[in-house]
């Protein structure tokens, strides 16, 4: 369970983005965070990842306060996450190599012992095994994101944070990867929190949707979207209704 308790956060010298903000997520849930730019959605993700520290208040994951990256939380960014000098295979192995570099110290890597370095099953699962020896510059944006997903999932995270991971991809590839992400999270029992700026993606991906408004955010505005999670959902009236609701709410927030 993830609990955010009276979180206040501001970048130094700037007005707070979150003020006394409370939010609770349960294990295995699928969340989308949506909001216009500058609303603090990426900051919230980085706070959850332990890459930013709350100005005050706390973020608890399974009762433990987060002040630094946690071995069980995976983070996938929009781009640039791959090392240009490493092949797909080496990039996908990177998390495991980092963990093995430190050994099971509980800080940088889980205490449960050394992980298997066999990345090929993950590359196969993500359909990029045939690209194992290619460099990031040689593959498409979608394939790069598949590599980033393989790298993160190979670490067996229980929480997956994604920051607009598919926003630079073509529509068909994006829908493909959305479905794959949901499938993998379900399969591995991963709690997914995905930041997006597109209404359609939020409605498609989030069984619950957190809408952030103009800062400071004080109360979470949550929308239940229990029907989502399958490709067919895109063709239902519930989906269109959810898009409409979100569009209206976002319009209210920005006007």
């Amino acid at each position, binding site marked *: 369970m993830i609990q955010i308790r009276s979180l206040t956060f501001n970048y130094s010298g700037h007005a707070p983005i979150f003020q006394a903000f409370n939010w609770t997520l349960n294990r295995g849930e699928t969340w989308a965070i949506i909001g216009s730019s500058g609303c603090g959605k990426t900051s919230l993700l980085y706070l959850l990842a332990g890459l930013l520290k709350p100005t005050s208040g706390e973020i608890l994951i399974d009762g433990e306060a987060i002040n630094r*990256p946690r071995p069980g939380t995976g983070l996938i960014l929009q781009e*640039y996450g791959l090392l240009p000098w490493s092949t797909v295979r080496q990039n996908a192995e990177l*998390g495991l190599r*980092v963990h093995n570099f430190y050994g099971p110290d509980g*800080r940088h890597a889980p205490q449960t012992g050394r992980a298997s370095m066999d990345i090929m099953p993950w590359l196969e699962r993500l359909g990029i095994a045939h690209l194992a020896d290619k460099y990031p510059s040689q593959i498409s944006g979608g394939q790069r994101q598949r590599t980033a997903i393989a790298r*993160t999932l190979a670490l067996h995270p229980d929480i997956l944070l994604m920051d607009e991971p598919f926003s630079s991809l073509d529509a068909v590839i994006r829908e493909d990867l959305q479905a794959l992400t949901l499938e993998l999270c379900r399969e591995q029992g991963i709690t997914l929190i995905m930041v997006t700026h597109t209404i359609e993606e939020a409605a498609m991906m989030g069984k619950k949707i957190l809408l952030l408004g103009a800062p400071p955010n004080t109360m979470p505005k949550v929308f239940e979207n229990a029907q989502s999670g399958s490709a067919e959902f895109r063709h239902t009236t519930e989906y269109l209704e959810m898009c409409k609701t979100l569009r209206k709410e976002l319009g209210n927030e920005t006007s």
Partner: protein
Amino acid sequence: MKRRDVLVAALGLVILWQAAAMLVNRSILPTPLLVARAFFSELTTGLLGEHALASLWRVVAGTLLSVLTAVPAGLAIGGSARLNRFASPVIYLLYPIPKVVFVPVILLFLGIGDAAKIAIIFLILFFQIVVLVRDQAAALPPQLFQSLRSLGAGRRALFRFVYLPASLPAILTALRQSVGTAVAVLYIAELFATQRGLGYYIYYNGSTLLNYPAMYAGVIAMSLLGLGLYFTVDWLERILCPWKFVS
């Protein structure tokens, strides 16, 4: 660039040299054949090999020393905005100074031994490597660090997995750009206060012994030294940075 094209170019230059030698027809420009003969006899029975080794040692030592000091300095400056604020104005002022003007100063301070020559090469390469490694480190996208830190990487792992591999192409580019200059300045440095090294050998044969074929043999050796270093850098880049050569 194809190897065959390079060989053809070399052959062309030799032909041009032969033509010039025939045209000038004076002892100060011997034919390629004469020089080649002198080169091999100086190498096998003379002292050319010994002088070449002295020069090679100075270049290699100066290069290693500059890489070992400039890479950590460049990474530290490029990786820290605070350090960059202090160091960059200093580098900005020192970088454009032609280091060859320090030759007399360094000779005064370090005397006639190898140390002075190594120091000069070091000085030339150091700034070049610092600047390129610094820029390379500063240009790494912050997202790369965020995603690595989220994988659990601390400072040591970032150094091992990001900074070090990222600095390799910068080091090799710096060496490619400056190794020629380093050899040129080594020649100047070896004109003074030494009796070892190709610079001395060339000058001594040309101005004192008036043995022009031997002098040209020295020039060839010095060219081969520069060319060899250049090829070595190319080769290292192919081995160490294969990702730069994919299409």
